[in-house]
């Protein structure tokens, strides 16, 4: 765990698919494609002015979401930052409710209160969607504290970008989680740039997983383009957390294809077009498809069928969202304070 786990799954000679059933592999492929197509549609709708605010897309990082959440049980928790669409889909939130939320509709995940950066769903143990960089990291630790407090075996996956590893709340959360042995796995989605500032220009240590060493915490880095490697590493950390309540930190090396948000261009001044195009050759969905084909798990007709299914599903989300009502004005003052029983 303290060493790089990037190649571990691939070297598992017996079964490149880690003993996972075929249905799971196919489900994962569909899920990654759904995230990709959902985000492409979101970009389109943003361009048309149907989606407001800030909208941070997940294109290129799908393997991190699918592989990580694939290692969980439904009652485990996920909390993340504002780039939350992919993880919400992986955690089982209804894509229709997510598209509706993007359009600011009453049928949205949070009834139009949170928007793109603040997806939530209690029934799915999806705890947001948080838009103050790094601030949700102690909150994730608090959820893990509650799990341990009740003697449960539920674990928390707490996702963040590389930029979040430079703010104080991150360090406080790591210290407290390690000190108190909280069942949480911190997952850094290192897509190399915090907005327009590279890891090299923002962090004194570029191997971000090594930041865990200061807290005596298990850590490692993972090829975030490889859904199976992600799954293997997170599964190991989850197993360890359930057995010992000890946290881990994993650095997923990944890449975002779009700008930081929809408000900025794909590459801008901080990265080259060439870097973006070269990295796209390591596309996580293509890599997974090739592996599945190589081992005759799927053929081209599956891929075509998948594409058609997902396209229809995304269209359905758009139709649902567009046909949904805006929140009634009476919603303005709801959910500010929760009714308390007479003390």
């Amino acid at each position, binding site marked *: 765990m303290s060493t790089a786990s990037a190649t571990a799954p691939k070297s598992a000679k017996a079964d490149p698919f880690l003993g996972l059933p075929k249905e799971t592999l196919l489900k994962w492929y569909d899920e990654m494609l759904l995230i990709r197509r959902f985000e492409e549609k979101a970009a389109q709708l943003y361009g048309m002015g149907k989606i407001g605010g800030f909208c941070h897309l997940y294109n290129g990082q799908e393997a991190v979401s699918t592989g990580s959440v694939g290692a969980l049980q439904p009652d485990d928790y996920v909390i993340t930052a504002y780039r939350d669409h992919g993880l919400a889909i992986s955690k089982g939130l209804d894509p229709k409710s997510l598209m509706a939320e993007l359009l600011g509709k009453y049928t949205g995940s949070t009834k139009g209160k949170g928007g793109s950066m603040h997806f939530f769903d209690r029934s799915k143990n999806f705890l947001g969607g948080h838009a103050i960089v790094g601030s949700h990291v*102690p*909150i994730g*630790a608090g959820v893990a504290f*509650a*799990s341990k407090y009740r003697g449960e075996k539920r674990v928390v996956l707490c996702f963040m970008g590389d930029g979040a590893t430079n703010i104080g709340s991150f360090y*406080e959360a790591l*210290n407290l989680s390690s000190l108190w042995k909280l069942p949480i796995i911190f997952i850094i989605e290192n897509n190399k740039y915090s907005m327009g500032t590279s890891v090299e220009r923002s962090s004194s240590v570029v191997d971000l997983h090594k930041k865990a060493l200061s807290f005596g915490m298990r850590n490692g880095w993972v090829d975030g383009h490889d859904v199976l490697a992600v799954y293997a590493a997170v599964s190991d950390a989850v197993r360890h957390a359930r057995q010992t309540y000890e946290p881990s930190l994993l650095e997923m090396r990944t890449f975002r294809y779009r700008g930081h948000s929809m408000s900025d261009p794909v590459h801008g001044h901080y990265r080259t077009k060439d870097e973006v195009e070269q990295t796209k050759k390591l596309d996580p969905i293509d890599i997974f498809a090739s592996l599945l084909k190589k081992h005759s798990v799927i053929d081209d007709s599956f891929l075509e069928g998948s594409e058609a299914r997902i396209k229809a599903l995304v269209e359905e989300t758009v139709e649902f969202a567009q046909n949904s009502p805006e929140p009634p004005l009476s919603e303005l003052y709801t959910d500010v304070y929760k009714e308390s029983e007479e*003390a």
Partner: protein
Amino acid sequence: MATVSIREALNQAMDEEMARDERVFLMGEEVANYNGAYKVSQGLLQKYGPRRVVDTPIAEEGFTGIGVGAAMAGLRPVIEVMTFNFSLVAYDQIVNHAAKMYSMSGGHFNAPMVVRGPGGAAHMLAATHSQALEAIYTHIPGLKVVMPSNAKDAKGLLKSSIRDENPVIFIESEMMYGDKGDIPDGEYTIPLGKGQIVREGSDVTIVSWSKILARVSAQAVEKLASEGISAELIDPRTLRPMDWDLIVESVKKTNRLVVVEEGWPFNGVGAQISHEVSHRAFDYLDAPVVRVTQEDVPLPYAHNLEKASLPSVEKVVAAVQNVMYKA
């Protein structure tokens, strides 16, 4: 009826709520082994163990965030800040997260937690350790703000705060932990959002809370009485939600209002009270509302400067004479 200090009253509130509800836990700096920096948590570690009485490192943002997460996941954290000055380090967690969670998640997750500890000036602690910060918390929708002025209210209000479904900022007075008062025997709570008339009067309404009520305004009322002025003293107890009806009805009776608070004047709680009363009881006012606040400066260390900056009995008496046109 028993006579206890505010410290003991707060301790009883936490003890009773922890005994009543397994989800309640206390977390903060020095709350466990040390029995509390101000001994408010005395004995709780021995009774409830380190799982429920949790010492933290000096990391307010971190452990307040832990409180937010634990609350979202169904627990009832009581987060002690050693003083409210240090809560500013956790202001992001309180304002951006605890206060927003219920609304921003569309009702999926609330953050039922209490952030409590002492606030206000003590004695010669200088600018960073003497702040009355209630105004910056009352500003925020999603938060409730409670400030008791006596032992009975401290216990009843803290119990209600722990049971509340929302984040509650519970500001105690650093100077008053030893102040004693009578509390009822047995279980009782005091609802949030309900103020009380501390002393009835007919000539002028004085609204004040916490230490400034107990140690300044109450004495000013006595002094005024000896001068033949009958002041009605109101303790809102909860600053958000504010018991507007109680204040407005009192002003309708007395036709004059003085608000006395320890915080600064600019956007202070008294400014909001003044606005609300101007709006709701304009035709009843016989004089402009007058406010007594701390001077508009960071509180200095030197005793004479500190004293000059804070509200005093003399300043309150002068303010009342002002609204009575007797100055």
